[in-house]
């Protein structure tokens, strides 16, 4: 009887989303009157037991196998499934990330259990015996669903950034599980990796200057590039822009693009459709530049300038240069 937190890591480096998962799982375990346990995959993650202990895990299950040196969705799913089988937790919580969803889905498929992804809330009266009521994000978070997970073992992922990490140190004991992995799960391992070049990315930039359909062409992004450059930021865009072939998909902000959270998001000629908004809504400040003062993005933004972006954006860059002398 326990709540099991699945720790996401990359070659032994913990994913920050795991800390929110440990915190949420500990809170749930406390209300159920049971203990928080955690699982790590691969011996290169053994050192993370101390981190799990910092967040209140009393037991850390360490899934070991010689092949578990890098990420592999099927091998990780099978390894966690075997730990779940061996320990029968009432709830299993994974990270609401690409890898987290994938591992929980693999566990669910292997154990033929339901799984509810991107949960934002768990029923505060849940005691472990009844179906688990959750609220989960649909449409990239623009719609919520109240759902019920009815199974002996409830598999869920926690939507990212919904629970802040809070420590609650305890001393964790470690249990090693030597898992059996047959050849069927050995194909989908990372075979090669090209490390990302260090630098400001769309996801981490403090300033994002973004353009939508209103920009009009690939060439017309030049003034946005200039403004982003002056502010140490990067250029983003809406889905309409990528669909028109004006910019690469790597610049796309939105449900099917990148989720951003800059200090300021400058949205130029973007209407603010749901698809785009869910990717931008975590921005700390939003400045909309738009000809239409009724545009969705204008009504949701903290600040707006009404008018033609093609004139306004160069004027802002000019003013910045003027003040810098």
């Amino acid at each position: 009887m326990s709540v099991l937190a699945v720790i996401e890591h990359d070659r032994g480096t913990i994913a920050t989303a795991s800390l929110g998962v440990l915190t949420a799982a500990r809170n749930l375990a406390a209300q159920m009157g049971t203990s928080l346990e955690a699982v790590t995959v691969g011996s290169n993650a053994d050192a993370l037991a101390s981190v799990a202990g910092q967040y209140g895990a009393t037991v850390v299950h360490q899934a070991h196998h010689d092949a578990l040196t890098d990420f592999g969705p099927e091998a990780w799913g099978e390894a966690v499934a075997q730990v779940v089988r061996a320990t029968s937790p009432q709830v299993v919580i994974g990270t609401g990330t690409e890898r987290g969803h994938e591992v929980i889905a693999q566990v669910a498929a292997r154990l033929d259990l339901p799984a509810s992804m991107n949960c934002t809330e768990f029923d505060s009266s849940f005691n472990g015996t009844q179906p688990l009521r959750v609220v989960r994000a649909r449409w990239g978070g623009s719609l919520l669903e109240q759902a019920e997970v009815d199974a002996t073992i409830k598999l869920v992922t926690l939507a990212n950034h919904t629970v802040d990490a809070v420590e609650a140190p305890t001393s964790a004991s470690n249990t090693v599980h030597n898992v059996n992995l047959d050849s069927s799960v050995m194909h989908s391992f990372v075979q090669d990796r090209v490390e990302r070049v260090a630098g400001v990315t769309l996801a981490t930039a403090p300033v994002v200057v973004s353009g939508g359909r209103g920009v009009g062409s690939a060439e017309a992004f030049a003034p946005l590039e200039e403004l982003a450059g002056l502010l140490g930021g990067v250029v983003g865009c809406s889905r309409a822009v990528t669909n028109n072939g004006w910019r690469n998909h790597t610049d796309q902000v939105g449900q099917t693009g990148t989720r951003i959270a800059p200090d300021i998001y400058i949205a130029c000629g973007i209407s603010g459709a749901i698809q785009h908004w869910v990717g931008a809504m975590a921005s700390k400040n939003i400045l909309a530049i738009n000809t239409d003062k009724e545009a969705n993005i204008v009504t949701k933004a903290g600040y707006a300038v009404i008018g033609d972006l093609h004139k306004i954006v160069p004027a802002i860059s000019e003013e910045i240069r003027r003040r810098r002398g």
Partner: protein
Amino acid sequence: MNILVCVKRVPAPGARINITDDGQAVDTAFLGFTVSPHEECAVEQAVQLVEKHGGEVTVLTLGPAEAEEQLRTAVSVGAAKAVLVPITESDWDPQRTAQAIASVITDLENANGKYDLVLFGNESADSCGYQVGIRVALKLGRPMVNGAKGLDIEGSVAKVRRESDAGQEIYMLPLPSAVGVKEGINLPRYPTMKGRLASKKVDVTRTESTGSVGGLKMIQLQRPPERVSNTQILGTGPEAASAVVDLLEELGVFK
């Protein structure tokens, strides 16, 4: 190279998603429908692979009778065959969906031979379950990787590229395999006149399938708290530049 692509019909929302009065569905009275974005790219990727390596693309959907429209859309951009697994409800839970789809694929393969690749979208745009493809692949006994931002065939291996926080990862899956595709892998083409004609003529195969109801039950939909913003209009036209830079200074992003 024969490829099966599973797609889902989803509403195409604009600025706001409304819910029906009973909270059971998205109010689609004023909405169009589309192929879920990741799957639109899966269809394009399949068509490109077949153009390069030969073979044909079959597109499959489990959905209401109207989902035939999305199958025809896929044919208009290059799919050759279309299979509809009709359901009377608006949606099935992930376990039931996966069971029904896997059973139809097994029947199709028994009749026509194995698909080298079965493609899915990374997650559907509406229910965002992140699991149907993974469940189907396991039932079919083939390796599966989700989140593909690149997919090529090298001999008898599918080379999958995907992005992680650390960089680009490469996976090599022996065929037959299954892959979940993410938007950005390609730029889907527009239908040609020839494609539009083909989409009108194609026979959509209807295959009934059942599946047992799974353990994830939707109770109801709700809207998240509305973000109400008292938008401060800094000005109109280029004259507002000074007020904008004042704001940037105030927020500490312009030093």
